[in-house]
């Protein structure tokens, strides 16, 4: 059996498992609010410059964004299966599924990087070089620039989280071979899974806000 080591402050494994997964949930609540100012900024922009927001979102690459959404959802599926395998104490299968999850995460990051590169080439990165192709009116340009600032900040923060998630998968793959106390208990896969799904859910919000706004009827 690969039961985790019982820390002295806990009376039972059940209590320890509960504390750990509860801790992860509280952490994720905190993480969610990390994206709060960006979403609030988006709401603010949307209210004050609806036209510019609409124009700006048409500059994003909807195809790549949609493909990435599919990639990320698939990775979450693999992660869920990995958690299931770990629960059934099949650590070898869990390791393979973690590898698949991490690989899909890397694919997502690669596509995202390519997208950023495209947008950089189109002078859509905020700053002195910012120069959208279709707007000249300063107010609109400012609105579009702020949209892209929020876009880059939100997607970069998301990518940072995903990178941490990929690292967690790789770390688990390396240490799952050892049973406790050297390696982690099976519940570690579940905790990594919670985190992964959280990162996925954040994207589920970012995708429509950044890519689909004002695209209807267009």
């Amino acid at each position: 059996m690969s039961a985790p080591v019982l820390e002295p402050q806990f009376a039972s494994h059940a209590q320890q498992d509960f504390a750990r997964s509860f801790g992860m949930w509280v952490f994720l609540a905190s993480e969610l609010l990390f994206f709060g100012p960006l979403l609030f900024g988006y709401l603010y922009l949307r209210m004050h410059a609806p036209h510019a927001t609409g124009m700006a979102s048409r500059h994003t690459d909807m195809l790549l964004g949609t493909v990435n959404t599919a990639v990320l959802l698939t990775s979450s599926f693999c992660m869920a299966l990995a958690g299931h395998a770990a629960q059934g104490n099949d650590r070898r299968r869990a390791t393979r599924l973690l590898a698949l999850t991490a690989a899909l995460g890397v694919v997502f990051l690669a596509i995202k990087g390519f997208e950023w590169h495209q947008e950089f080439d189109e002078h859509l990165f905020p700053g002195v070089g910012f120069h959208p192709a279709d707007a000249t009116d300063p107010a609109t340009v400012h609105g579009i620039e702020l949209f892209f600032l929020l876009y880059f900040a939100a997607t970069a923060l998301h990518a940072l989280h995903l990178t941490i998630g990929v690292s967690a998968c790789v770390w688990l793959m390396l240490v799952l071979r050892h049973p406790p106390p050297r390696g982690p208990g099976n519940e570690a896969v579940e905790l990594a899974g919670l985190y992964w799904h959280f990162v996925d859910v954040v994207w589920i919000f970012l995708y429509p806000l950044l890519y689909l706004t004002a695209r209807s009827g267009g």
Partner: protein
Amino acid sequence: MTSAQNDASIVDEGTAPHERREPSYLAGGYRLIDWLTTRDHKRIAVLYAISITFFFFLGGVAAALIRLELATPQGDLVSDDTYNKLFTAHGIIMVWLFLIPSIPAVLGNFLMPLMIGARDLAFPRLNLASWYLYMAGGAIVLWALLAGGVDTGWTFYTPFSSMFSNSHVVAALSGVLVLGFSSILTGLNFIVSVHTLRARGLSWFRLPLFVWANYATSLILVLATPVLAMTLVLVAIERLFQVGIFDPALGGDPLLFQHLFWFYSHPAVYIMVLPAMGVASEIIPCFARRPVFGYRFMAYAILAIAVIGFLVWGHHMFVSGQSMYAGMVFSLLSFLVAIPSAIKVFNWTATLYKGSIRFSAPMLYALGFVGLFTIGGLTGLFLASLALDVHLSDTYFVVAHFHYIMVGGSVMAYLGGIHFWWPKVTGRMYSDTWGKIAALVIFAGFNLTFFPQYLLGYAGMPRRYHSYPGEFQLLHVLSSAGAVILAVGYLMPLGYLAWSLRYGARATPNPWRATGLEWQTDSPPPEHNFAIAPVVVREPYAYTPEGP
């Protein structure tokens, strides 16, 4: 009534840890490395206490220089630029390095596990990590101050902070960001510990109010701090890349910054004052020998303050240009937060009613807290009134108001808590007489320092100015004189508490005959707190009047 009943133990006597004594948490592992790698929540609390005290006196030096400058109407002691850097240093250090972590990280870390009958917090390594983050954040802030200082004020208002200030804003922002992560981890640890590690029989409504207060504070820490962190990142982005997020000249909106900043920083006031309320709720019943009046309402009031505290940030923006309707809503909500606060003050008063009150040092501090918090709270109503706030905004009235809440409230309660639990933490008694004298000196010095500032503000003296018209001098001199008395009062505990460490009488496990779980173990407690897991069989605050 026998003395055993009088002792009002809430622990089942059969499980009281009298046998099989373990060595105290202070014994063994004397080397520095043992302390720096400890996972014991009690040792981490001591580490926090030492570092927080250092920053408190550092922030105090800045305050002293500010008061010295303001003793004369001319700006003759320091230049205007230095003055701006001084009040910024004072604000940043006192808010983020002292007030926010003081009670949760020092008293909370030490007491939360003891009060819920646990052997440690749920995540001891994370607890140590949060202390290291605190130290790292403190070091970065210190570096920013030593490298030339910051002149934006602790609020980092944009676009000044993001575009125009030539000082070390990004470094200071990074320091505050790191400190924020430290708070989040502490809050997370408390929340999980209260949910998972309570002793058998310790239901939610048997928790001490100190635990309730720190629990509610932790919720604010976990939910509000990330917003501040991200906001500071946006300021840094605007500053580094010259992108218009907050600067109107670049198409940004400075109101956006204020919304985001105060969404954290108003709840931050409750991060500072809720734990202080928790401390007062422990001390007052103990020294009045009465159960706390309306325990459940006290707990609900704590939660109500935490929740409503999230909805009132806009009262910092009455004169900023937000819409009139937003101002009206925020004004109403700000009045609402006075209700649970008043419930607490009334219930402390009711607890004292017909109590057999002992005026020991911790009690004097706690009563001082209630008095100063009440004055600060009532003047808060002035500022919550939309029309009156237009007159008082950015004057010394505001300065006096928040110092009454944060210094008169939080610092007074922090000192009260230090005195109350000192025997538990160190195993030594201090001189009660000196403690009482210090409490009175601090109370007198505090009022002399800050009450004239209400009058100054009402007469129109703006804040953040380093010179002023001559007619304000009398009140400024009174305030500066009060600051000297206050400084003496703050230095006194350093003396007699340090003295007690070596020469003080040995403390018994329960010198105040209090009923909390933390008093049911040795003073100082053993490494794992309780030899046998305690079982709680009574309601909290089961105090009875002392016999003749």
